[in-house]
């Protein structure tokens, strides 16, 4: 398995963080964004999903589901972006990604969950590939679009009375960490018309202005292909 490592010098160095990531994975993107927000440096280890590197025995030991991202922190291995976020939140509490207020806290957990359970798993590349084989690329694309639109409609309703500059107010939290990469994918891959989701669109514009978000972009990663 090819490793391209890169030390990222951000505000605070942390003991031993290693992130297994693929530049185009929106799930890995969430964690890259979160690590940047918390000022945590990490070693980037690329897993080329297009070449099937996720099926190597070494990677399977890290995550038997063969997904990125996987975070390794000393001898703790955490896979799944939602689990990683909650782990990071407790281990490295600087720049909290969950607000203290119970209502907003719950909103952040809900929004992230809608994305990680009800949207992304239904349109991830391996899923789309299956649908393409079974029903052709046009139907598969329509399916992806409908999953995203259904989820975005729910998120728009969930957040519209609470959003400010960001999803749940004036500060970036977990909802934004999940939302911004998802919107980017929605635009790139599914050509979603974001004018239907003005609250989400506004949140996305706010996130795009953050250096922590820019640093997490797929094209900024060591394994990005031109």
């Amino acid at each position: 398995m090819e490793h391209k490592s890169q030390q990222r010098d951000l505000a605070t160095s942390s003991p031993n963080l290693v992130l297994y990531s693929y530049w185009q994975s929106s799930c890995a993107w969430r964690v890259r964004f979160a690590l940047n927000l918390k000022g945590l440096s990490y070693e980037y280890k690329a897993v080329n999903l297009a070449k099937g590197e996720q099926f190597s025995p070494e990677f399977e030991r890290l995550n038997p589901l063969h997904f990125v991202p996987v975070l390794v922190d000393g001898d703790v291995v955490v896979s799944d972006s939602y689990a990683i976020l909650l782990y990071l939140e407790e281990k490295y509490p600087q720049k909290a990604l969950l607000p203290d207020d119970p209502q907003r806290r719950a909103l952040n957990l809900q929004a992230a969950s809608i994305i990680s359970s009800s949207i992304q798993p239904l349109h991830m590349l391996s899923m789309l590939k299956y649908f393409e084989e079974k029903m052709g690329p046009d139907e598969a694309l329509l399916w992806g679009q409908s999953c995203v639109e259904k989820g975005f409609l729910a998120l728009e309703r969930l957040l519209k009375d609470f959003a400010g500059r960001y999803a749940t107010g004036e500060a970036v939290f977990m909802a934004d960490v999940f939302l911004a990469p998802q919107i980017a994918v929605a635009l790139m891959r599914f050509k979603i018309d974001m004018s239907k989701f003005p609250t989400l669109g506004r949140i996305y514009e706010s996130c795009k202005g953050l250096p922590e978000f820019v640093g997490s972009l797929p094209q900024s990663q060591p394994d990005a292909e031109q």
Partner: protein
Amino acid sequence: MATIEEPKNKLKLYSYWRSSCSCRVRIALNLKGLSYEYIPVNLVKGEQFNPEILKLNPLGYVPVLVDGDFVVSDSFAILMYLDEKYPQHPLLPRDLHKKAINYQAANIVSSSIQPLQNLAVLKFIEEKVSPDEKLPWVQYHIRNGFAALEKLLKDHAGRYATGDEIFLADLFLAAQLHPAIKRFNVDMTPFPLLSRLHEAYNELPAFQNGMPENQPDTPSSSTT
């Protein structure tokens, strides 16, 4: 020490008997000794789109928990809320590594298994591929997830998923094992740990009382 907290107003849970997401929350409420008003939402009949329900939960999902003025949907968010507000029978271990194992197991179920067996997806498979494809599809994703769970938990399990006490992972597992075995006939031979856990959950009243067959809206003809 966790104090016993009681709600000021009676809790309400919008639930569907067969919803495994609702099942997770029902078990948690039972474990914490919290009584609640069960408000059935018939997903098959589309009741989640009734104006009254939509007003509370614009997403049209179950479960939804109402605690006085506080409304929260999504099983994960509900469980985290319950655990913070009513700390008796904590759902998470103190040790951060064990906590992370619980989060991972919960998310394997909630992102990699359950969403692929919900009504909307199955309907799509039925219409666009074939009705015969539904069951193999569900079984494939369950087996995939179960294989991952066996590996994740094998060095951490005790009497239950992550040790000798019930935690978050057990709620997600119990709610998923039930339909896997009873509805989708998944062959559990490759999953000895999960099989053992399923048997252990069958012994616990808090779990059994949360199962689909024991709800107020369970159809009288149904056992699963």
